[in-house]
């Protein structure tokens, strides 16, 4: 204590603040909730997860064989998933909101950048360790059950997980802070950060999908030597050694040598490499802290974007709809397509909507005889029904609808302002959705050498699916506006409800009416009509209804 001022450890204060922010929802019950969850996590890890996996193995014995024969590769696949979760999730989460303003306050209070990073890292530990505590047992329990791993073996496995999680969390904290600092706090930087956050989320999804669908092939791939350069491999190999050395099924030393021959490194080398990675990332982060994190007005912050002449499409819309509606459609399109995160969403949407022709092509290649056009169309339509609505709903629903409550008030101040605004948005989204329908329809038509008229029908079918799901997404957001904050609970609730309604409005009528479909279909056109009636039309009706209720909600004065 100097001159009445108590000396505090800055990183501790920052860690506490970060933890309090992350656990705001629990308020004064934080301690009880975290202790309770930790106890539940331990019970889950050592009792529930093994019992559950045992039950699954009894139902699906072939899965047990998969883990038995391909364990080193499977372990690497599991830990790749965990590694990506701990690495990418914090980066994606942190980049959704640039918090350089907080850094400025801290740095102006003579807090070192090293203290900030350590504080942010320590503040995240309880949250992410809990996540790992619930995730890791689900990934490790299959090995524990298949090889009846002893307590010591399990301890080694969980130590590997702990080492890899902590070191990766540190690395991701340093990385996300560095990206934040480089992007700085400017509208453009914030937008770029959101775009990166969105792309990293997709990077996270891809191996997950691959893991679900191509586990066998991926495990083969993951046993390749090139993966020895990745930290998750060292953690996976350390855990694999724990499985084999402490197995309870009586594997002979020859069998163990044979099984682990693929690993190249022994348990000591894997463990040392993992510890070295942890230490190195701590040293690199701490040493580079002052170099990486310098607040400055970079050249990017000085860029002012000026709008130019409107393009041909926008001018066409104005000519076609010369009144207020035309203006509102044009402004909605400009606002949507000028945001990098929306461009990223549309690009991702286009990639996913291009999947049906590729999947159909792949499936048909496995058919020995040439498939008739009706089968090609049916397969394409069914895959479109599965893919298009989700893409439409998630691309055009969600964030960016209203930027703030004040923004809503400006709209509400105009007579029937909310109605005009939502109508303009829906029409703008429908026009953008047309793009998503045309590209895959053209691809299917060209790849399968179909009649151009069928191609046109595909476009129309895809358009109904995308615009119907956009109606659902818009209706939900109008009912529960997110005001642009990706992290808000409204955003997650909206995404969940949008997905549930889209799936429900397609699957329920489809399943209810599918049995009557064959009797109604006597050709390609009735197939289009029948499926449209069972999927696109119900979704359009439900979406329109939601938009109507949403408009009512936006129009009414606050209480």
């Amino acid at each position, binding site marked *: 204590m100097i001159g009445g001022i108590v000396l505090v450890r800055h990183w501790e204060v920052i860690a506490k603040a970060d933890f309090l922010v992350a656990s705001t929802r629990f308020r004064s019950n934080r301690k009880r909730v975290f202790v309770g969850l930790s106890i539940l996590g331990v019970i889950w890890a050592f009792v529930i997860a093994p019992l559950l996996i045992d039950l699954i193995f009894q139902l699906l014995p072939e899965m047990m064989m998969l883990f038995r024969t391909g364990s080193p590769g499977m372990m690497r696949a599991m830990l790749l998933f965990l590694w990506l979760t701990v690495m990418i999730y914090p980066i994606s989460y942190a980049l959704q909101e640039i918090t350089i303003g907080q850094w400025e306050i801290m740095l102006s209070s003579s807090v070192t950048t090293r203290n900030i990073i350590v504080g942010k890292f320590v503040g995240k530990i309880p949250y992410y360790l809990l996540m790992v505590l619930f995730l890791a047992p689900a990934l490790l329990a299959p090995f524990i059950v298949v090889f009846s791993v002893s307590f010591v073996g399990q301890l080694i496995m969980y130590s590997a997980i702990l080492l890899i999680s902590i070191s990766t969390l540190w690395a991701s904290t340093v990385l996300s802070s560095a990206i934040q600092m480089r992007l700085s706090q400017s509208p453009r930087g914030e937008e770029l950060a959101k775009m990166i956050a969105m792309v990293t989320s997709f990077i996270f999804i891809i191996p997950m999908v691959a893991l679900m669908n191509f586990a066998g092939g991926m495990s083969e791939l993951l046993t390749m030597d090139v993966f020895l350069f990745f930290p998750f491999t060292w953690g996976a190999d350390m855990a694999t050694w724990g499985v084999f050395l402490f197995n309870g099924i009586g594997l002979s030393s020859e069998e163990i040598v044979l099984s682990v021959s693929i690993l190249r490194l022994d348990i000591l080398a894997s463990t040392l490499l993992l510890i070295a990675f942890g230490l190195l990332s701590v040293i690199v982060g701490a040493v580079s802290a002052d170099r990486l994190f310098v607040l400055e007005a970079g050249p990017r912050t000085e860029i002012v974007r000026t709008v130019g002449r409107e393009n041909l499409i926008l001018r066409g819309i104005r000519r076609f709809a010369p009144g207020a509606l035309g203006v509102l459609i044009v402004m909605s399109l400009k606002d949507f397509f000028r945001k990098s995160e929306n461009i990223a969403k549309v690009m991702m949407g286009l990639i996913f909507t291009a999947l049906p022709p590729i999947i159909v092509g792949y499936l048909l290649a496995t058919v020995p005889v040439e498939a008739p056009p009706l089968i090609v169309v049916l397969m394409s339509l069914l895959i479109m029904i599965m893919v298009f609505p989700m893409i439409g709903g998630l691309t055009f629903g969600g964030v960016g609808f209203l930027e703030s409550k004040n923004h809503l008030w400006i709209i509400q101040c105009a*007579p029937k302002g909310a109605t005009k605004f939502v109508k303009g948005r829906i029409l703008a989204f429908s026009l953008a959705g047309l793009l998503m329908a045309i590209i895959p329809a053209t691809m299917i038509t060209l790849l399968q050498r179909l009649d151009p008229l069928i191609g046109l029908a595909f476009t129309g079918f895809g358009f109904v699916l995308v615009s119907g799901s956009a109606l659902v997404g818009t209706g939900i957001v109008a009912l529960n506006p997110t005001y642009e904050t990706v992290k808000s609970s409204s955003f997650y609730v909206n995404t969940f409800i949008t997905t549930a309604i889209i799936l429900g409005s397609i699957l329920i009528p489809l399943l209810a009416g599918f049995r009557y479909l064959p009797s109604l279909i006597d050709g390609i056109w009735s197939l289009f009509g029948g499926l449209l009636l069972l999927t696109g039309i119900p979704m359009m009706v439900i979406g329109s209804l939601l938009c109507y209720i949403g408009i009512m909600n936006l129009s009414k004065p606050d209480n």
Partner: protein
Amino acid sequence: MNKMAVETDGLSKAFGTIQAVVDLNLSVSRGSRFGFLGPNGAGKTTTARILSGLLKATSGHAKVCGLDIRTQRDRIKAITGFLPETPGMYSKLSATEFLEFVGALNNVVGEVLLKRVDQLLDILGLSGRQDDLLESYSSGMKQKVLVASTILHEPELVFLDEPTSRLDPAASVLVKEIILALAREKDTTFFICTHMTDFAEGVCDVVGILNEGQLVALGPPQSIIEDSGSNTLEEAYLKVIGGEIDRTKLLDWRDSSG
């Protein structure tokens, strides 16, 4: 035509247990410049939002330009303008595009609108930046664009919530002159929520002081000054609100460590 722009009768608004506005009885005549003074949280913004149809009153009645705020909201919106305290605008639109958007919401489009936009931006000193995205604007520049959006459709009554809080002195004078010119030439009524007493004194012909949701003073600025035995409106305001400062205690916090 109704001679009153605003008439309230026992207007009250509660948010849970908090009484934001209590039994407000107020009349503002057409063509006047009414200044609604009061400290932060006094209920000024809440009143303006109720009158412009954005918020429901808990009890009481009010009419805006002779129209009932409960049943004729859309008609009220067509003849009023509202400037919110915080700018709420599309960051990815330029000033011209944003004003075109607001114009379209108020059914003003085409050449008439574009001409008004150009002239307003010119008057507000933004003509060189009209095509830059709003994300690059300073808060003062955004406030100027919002002022333009509020008067774009030539409303009969304009609600301004802290219109000059983000503006530099030159821009404040400009806004003040625009208000005076519109009131003089177009007989536009202004309902200005502010806690800037010097601005209210210079612009408003009638002032109401609100404290904890209750109207505690009403009249021309000069009469409020005289009634409270003060020299300026700021002094009168502090006397009415009870916000006088005890200068002897200003640095007491430094000795609190004991």
